[in-house]
């Protein structure tokens, strides 16, 4: 490799060939398959890549190295040659020479570079480029340039630089206004300030989250044949927030791998662990859950090592790593660390977290605040309470402590209805009644069985209820059931036909009361308590209002349900707030708003006025004593309770309880059903000889990965950041820092960045700021043929980066240029335009229903990601299907990509948007062209460019002028509304289409 050879001169060229750069690659190609780290396939007990083993093997002669057996066997013409002809291509003469020189110099073997922790490298002494650096990292780049005899390029123009920085930091181009402001900023720190603004943009998090999603194999479906929808976008939003808040990368790591195990883990910490719930689950009939659970854990091992440490573990699943010092036991030791979670390829993706998104949380807080502000006002309107008389239990509210349950109880809210509802209900008494709705021939009921204010039966107590049956939808049966802590629910009375199975008919457990009452008006029902086995002294704490639907279903209203002739003191809570508080105190305020619960805990004399008022409100709410303001309070309160219950259920990691932990065994050749020896959890000793501290669990593993002592994590992360900015990592193989990966082009630069990253507290924003404000980054990306020949891939960084944007950015940028982009952050995935028929799926199909404007113009990050039918244009631009961790998207350049940007309706719509903006910019063609070009490229068009575009415009106008009908059809293709002058608009859309397809627009330069 050119750069490697150039930069290897960090250490002066000596006689001894470099083990890592020169010797090891030869051995890896020809020898290590049989004489490497894997004992299973090792021949002749000879291992060549370990100094101790090599010297012990006897193939080297200490006294006369040049007569060593090792050299003898590789000489051409040896009767029993190495490598054997059937095993490998023969060694080249130059390779033999290298091996001879290596043996002559003592056959030294170094540890692999990346398995040793980075130390801050000494900066090279610069000669001619001493004034060039703006950041410490530039010194290391300049050192490489001086050694290669190259000079850095001039800085890019400010306009180009802003576009580059904007695309790099937030995946969107600068708006024309941002560009104007930047170019007009006279400050010498204008660029630094612009970088800070971009880092502070909330789109920064979206852009960088996108890259992380590839590593995390994030998708909105769960994979395999069914590939059903999986709600895991709350985790995607967590990643966006983490980047935006610049959560230090070590914390970012620990939370995703083991957030659930942190002391005092918050819901947010647990949500972060969904990282590893992006594994696929198979819910096809007849599949073996354990097989796919094992596949998921294997994927977690591979993904963890690749994403954080650039170590490829996959091969050690079946046998010792052929090249890196990782044994199969090492593999399963890591596997054991990740093998103790509850998830097990279940169709429901359990365990899950009911997560309240920050948006939902904010909504609930707004409602609570609104309610608080109204408290005083409502109470001032409320009537005096000493006039209240009631015997009912269920009337305007439920008794204290009662928890509503049943089919009719959505979100744990009792189904009250009053005259303000649609349709309005005229209650029997007070302001509201409860409603019950049954489906045809089905039971429906609502009930409670945990009232804190219980009732004691007297000898002549009567169960009383008022009922009104809807004549449109009469049920076949209605039933009242009473709950006693001693006898349960075995106290029932029913009217109409006998349906259901509870209790024995014709007994107090199921006592018939004759025909259904007449429909259409309130009817009083009355049963002696004794008749349903509630003799004097029985304590009652619950009641159920039930019905069985008729052929059309059933609708029944209930009101004023309770007992007569009971001890009046049982109803003190309806007249006396302190009795109410006392009753509720026994059940910790069950059913109250959390704020009221809190107030209840405080001694009455120590409560704030606010707390006192809130309890008063809640009491009055329960007994229906809020007067005219009652409905307002009830609806505000209901909305708040509902908002607080709004959550999204998302799969997360949860550790198995101690007594259910799995035993981990080596799986022979990786086969899930062929276990061998048991292994203990741990990490490969080659990466950390000290091992993990106890307890050796997932959290210890995560902390080790995120520790400054880990030789790889910081290097791998800074390399990924570098790759994103410069198009290729300092280590090209960002997925593999092992011995089979490429060596770093400039290890001093990489190590400097890694050490610096840790010094900066693992702050990615801080490191990105240093890189973006470096002289290296600011260089112009123009290249002359000489430099191109010398360094075609820009490994030496004598110029700025220039490469095609990724799939999401190309799309987002087109929408932004066309003025269509909806900048909304977070939330469920969206369904932008997609051709008919591309979403055929066999099972669990659903359909691709296009999102309305707005959502369909959200950033590509939010596009619904189905693994078995990914969004076509993303895939065409090399996005992976997200089945496995992908470190690096290979950038291809194909005609199918041209067809997307030319013809995909999303891009046509963007071209239409751009056309509209050009037309609105001026009345003059020339200014319109200038504005459009600037919007698309971030710079002013040259005279030649403008004349080419003018000529195109003329052509387009003349084509459409003769065919206005075609113009109209074309506008329709671009989803443009009607226009007064369709030919003119169509011509400008053609112009917009060309601008969006410019090479300069599709690349970052």
């Amino acid at each position, binding site marked *: 490799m050119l750069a490697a050879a150039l930069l290897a001169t960090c250490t002066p060229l000596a006689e001894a060939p470099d083990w890592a750069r020169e010797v090891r690659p030869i051995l890896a190609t020809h020898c290590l398959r049989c004489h490497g780290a894997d004992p299973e396939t090792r021949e002749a007990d000879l291992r060549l890549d370990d100094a101790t083993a090599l010297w012990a093997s006897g193939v080297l002669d200490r006294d006369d190295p040049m007569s060593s057996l090792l050299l003898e066997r590789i000489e051409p013409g040896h009767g029993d040659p190495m490598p054997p002809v059937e095993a490998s291509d023969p060694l080249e003469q130059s390779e033999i020479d290298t091996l001879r020189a290596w043996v002559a110099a003592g056959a030294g073997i170094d540890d692999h570079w990346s398995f040793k922790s980075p130390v801050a490298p000494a900066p090279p002494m610069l000669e001619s480029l001493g004034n060039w650096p703006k950041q410490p990292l530039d010194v290391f780049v300049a050192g490489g340039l001086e050694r290669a005899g190259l000079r850095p390029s001039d800085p890019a123009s400010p306009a180009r630089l802003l576009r580059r920085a904007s695309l790099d930091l937030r995946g969107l181009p600068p708006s024309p206004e941002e560009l104007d402001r930047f170019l007009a900023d006279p400050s010498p720190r204008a660029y630094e300030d612009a970088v800070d603004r971009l880092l502070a943009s909330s789109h920064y998090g979206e852009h960088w989250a996108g890259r992380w999603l590839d590593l995390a194999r994030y998708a909105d479906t769960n994979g395999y044949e069914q590939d059903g929808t999986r709600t895991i976008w709350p985790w995607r939003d967590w990643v966006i927030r983490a980047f935006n808040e610049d959560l230090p990368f070590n914390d970012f790591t620990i939370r995703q791998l083991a957030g659930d195990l942190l002391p005092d883990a918050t819901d947010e910490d647990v949500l972060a662990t969904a990282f590893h719930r992006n594994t696929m689950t198979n819910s096809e009939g007849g599949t073996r859950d354990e097989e796919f659970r094992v596949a998921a854990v294997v994927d977690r091992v591979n993904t963890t090592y690749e994403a954080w440490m650039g170590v490829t*573990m*996959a091969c050690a699943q079946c046998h010792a790593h052929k090249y890196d010092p990782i044994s199969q036991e090492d593999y399963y030791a890591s596997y054991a660390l990740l093998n103790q979670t509850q998830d097990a390829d279940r169709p429901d993706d359990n365990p899950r977290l009911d997560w309240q998104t920050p948006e939902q949380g904010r909504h609930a807080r707004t409602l609570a605040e609104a309610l608080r502000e109204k408290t005083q006002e409502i109470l001032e309107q409320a009537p005096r309470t000493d006039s209240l008389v009631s015997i009912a239990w269920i009337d305007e509210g439920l008794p204290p402590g009662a928890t509503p349950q049943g089919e009719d109880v959505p979100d744990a809210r009792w189904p009250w209805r009053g005259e303000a509802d649609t349709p309005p209900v005229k209650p029997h008494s007070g302001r509201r009644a409860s409603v019950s709705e049954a489906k045809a021939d089905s039971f429906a009921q609502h009930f409670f069985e945990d009232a804190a204010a219980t009732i004691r039966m007297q000898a002549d107590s009567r169960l009383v209820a008022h009922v009104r049956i809807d004549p449109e939808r009469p049920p076949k049966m209605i039933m009242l059931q009473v709950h006693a802590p001693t006898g349960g629910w075995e106290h029932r009375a029913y009217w109409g036909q006998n349906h259901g199975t509870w209790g024995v008919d014709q007994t107090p457990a199921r006592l018939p009361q004759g025909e259904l009452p007449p429909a259409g008006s309130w009817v009083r029902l009355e049963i002696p308590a004794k008749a349903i086995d509630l003799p004097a002294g029985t304590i009652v704490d619950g009641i159920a209002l039930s019905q069985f639907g008729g052929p059309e279903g059933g609708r029944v209203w209930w009101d004023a349900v309770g007992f007569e002739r009971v001890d009046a003191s049982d109803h003190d809570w309806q007249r006396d707030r302190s009795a109410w508080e006392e009753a509720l105190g026994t059940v910790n305020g069950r059913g109250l708003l959390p704020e009221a619960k809190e107030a209840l805990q405080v001694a009455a004399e120590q409560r704030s006025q606010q707390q006192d008022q809130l309890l008063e409100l809640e009491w009055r709410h329960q007994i229906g004593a809020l007067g005219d303001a009652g409905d307002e309070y009830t609806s505000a309160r209901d909305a708040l309770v509902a908002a607080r219950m709004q959550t999204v259920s998302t799969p997360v990691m949860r550790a198995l309880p101690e007594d259910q932990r799995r035993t981990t065994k080596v799986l022979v050749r990786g086969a899930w059903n062929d276990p061998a020896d048991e292994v203990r959890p741990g990490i490969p000793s080659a990466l950390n000889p000290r091992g993990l501290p106890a307890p050796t669990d997932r959290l210890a593993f995560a902390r080790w990965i995120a520790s400054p002592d880990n030789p790889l994590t910081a290097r791998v992360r800074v390399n990924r950041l570098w790759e994103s900015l410069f198009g290729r990592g300092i280590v090209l193989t960002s997925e593999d820092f092992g011995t089979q990966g490429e060596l770093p082009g400039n290890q001093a630069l990489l190590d400097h960045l890694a050490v610096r990253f840790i010094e900066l507290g693992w702050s990615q924003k801080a490191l990105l700021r240093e890189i973006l404000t470096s002289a290296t980054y600011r260089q112009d990306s123009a290249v002359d043929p000489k430099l191109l020949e010398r360094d075609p891939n820009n490994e030496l960084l004598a110029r700025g980066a220039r490469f095609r944007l990724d799939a999401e950015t190309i799309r987002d940028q087109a929408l932004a240029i066309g003025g269509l982009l909806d900048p909304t952050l977070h939330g469920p995935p969206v369904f932008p335009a997609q051709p008919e028929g591309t979403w055929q799926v066999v099972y669990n199909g659903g359909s691709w229903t296009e999102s309305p404007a707005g959502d369909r113009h959200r950033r590509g990050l939010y596009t619904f990601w189905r693994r*078995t039918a990914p969004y076509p244009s993303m895939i065409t631009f090399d996005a992976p299907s997200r089945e496995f961790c992908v470190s690096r998207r290979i950038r291809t350049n194909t005609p199918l990509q041209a067809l997307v940007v030319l013809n995909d309706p999303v891009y046509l719509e963007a071209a239409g948007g751009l056309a509209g903006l050009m037309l609105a910019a001026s009345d003059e063609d020339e200014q319109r062209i200038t504005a459009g070009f600037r919007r698309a490229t971030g710079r002013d068009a040259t005279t030649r460019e403008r004349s080419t575009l003018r000529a195109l415009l003329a052509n387009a106008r003349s*084509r459409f002028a003769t065919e206005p009908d075609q113009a109209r059809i074309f506008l329709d293709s671009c989803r443009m509304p009607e226009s007064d002058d369709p030919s003119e608009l169509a011509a400008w859309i053609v112009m917009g*289409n060309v601008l969006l*397809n410019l090479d300069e627009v599709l690349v970052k330069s």
Partner: protein
Amino acid sequence: MNPRVPDQLASMNEVTRRQFLSRIGAGIGGMALASMLGENGLALDETPHHPPRAKRVIYLHMAGSPPHHDLLDPKPKLAEWDGKACPEHLLDPERFAFIKGHPTVLPSPYAFTRQGESGIELSELLPHLGSVADKLCVVRSVHTDQFNHAPAQLFLYTGSPRLGRPSMGSWATWGLGSENQNLPGYVVLVSGGKVPSAGKSVWGSGFLPSVHQGVQCRSTGDPILYVGDPAGLPRELRRESLDALSRLNEMQCERMGDPETLARVAQYELAFRMQMSVPEATELAEESPATLEAYGANPGGSSFANNCLLARRLVERGVRFVQLFDWGWDTHGTGPHDDIMTQLPLKCRETDRPVAALIADLEQRGLLEDTLVVWSGEFGRTAMNEKRNGSTFLGRDHHPHCFSLFMAGGGVKGGHVHGETCEFGAEIVRDPVGIHDLQATIMHLLGFNHEKFTYPFQGRDFRLTDVHGSVVPGLLA
């Protein structure tokens, strides 16, 4: 129009080519570019290991898996067991997807007759296929280890039952490129109304560059996504737009000196040509009435017959790998829509004639010699009647231990039967062919040693056949 390469950029050509080829690999992009730059060879190091017998493949997949007992593997002994509980050994240690309890044996209701000079026995459901019997290499001893559709299909095409590996067609185009720079190298055609169970992953390129994924050619709308200009845009104006675009991009290239810009210019030109060549290739109405009749094809419609004819047109134009999926072969017998008395004859009527016509047509055009045709499902079916929930319709459950397929052309024996199953058609008794063996053999016919045809990913050299498989010499002509 060819893009004009500015003089001062001529010196970039050497670097340019190297950079393009390393970045693009083979396939439409790489091949096209190679030719633009006067390069004739393949873009990859992975040139064939030996001279290929097959230059292209048409894979006909009957998704859901046809019953071998009723089509390709006659088992007259089953008649003696008609309706009787099957012998114990067929149940132990079997797992079934749907069969419960002790099932009864289901003999085939269809007669078999010897066909052609070779006398291969074929079902009466495949009368047309008999006319090309002497071209067929019927394999009765294929086995898999997956008994659900999606994993079995993935296993068949990618060598692994799980998602994420490249499909056979991707391997082929990665290794060989395409012979036609104006068409994708790997085309997928779907009939029967649904994509296969495993979705588009069965033609995914996995870790190979995405340019090698199968391109689905659709029967409605654009044959290839976005290949058609938007309605209302005059074709001449598209040409003028691309001319303007090329000029602007060349100015950009002069200023920035990035050879990738020239590659992009070339790709846009290629796209423009594809816009013409794709509709041309997919225009079945150009075929003679006799040909349409022979296939039973119906221009403008959507059918397996149309896809067979389309496959011939595509390979004729140099497409490397054409993959057909036909839905509706999962004959469990839960109703007339999936039984072997109504549904199976229906599927056979839809496919028998076009498959026979395809083989005869390729032969007549001199293409069969170096075009490999494969017909298969993803696994076999049971000798027993499934009788799910007491169904009175006849059908068979999934069976991974043996199934039948046939191949033709492309270096395989004609008029040949390979392998044998037991008298119940449940176990292989001679010459088993595993899925990886089948893949190794297909790769062999394409000129590759499957063990050396590898791609590095996640630290491993991956290959289509994982770590298994051997070429089956008995299949080779």
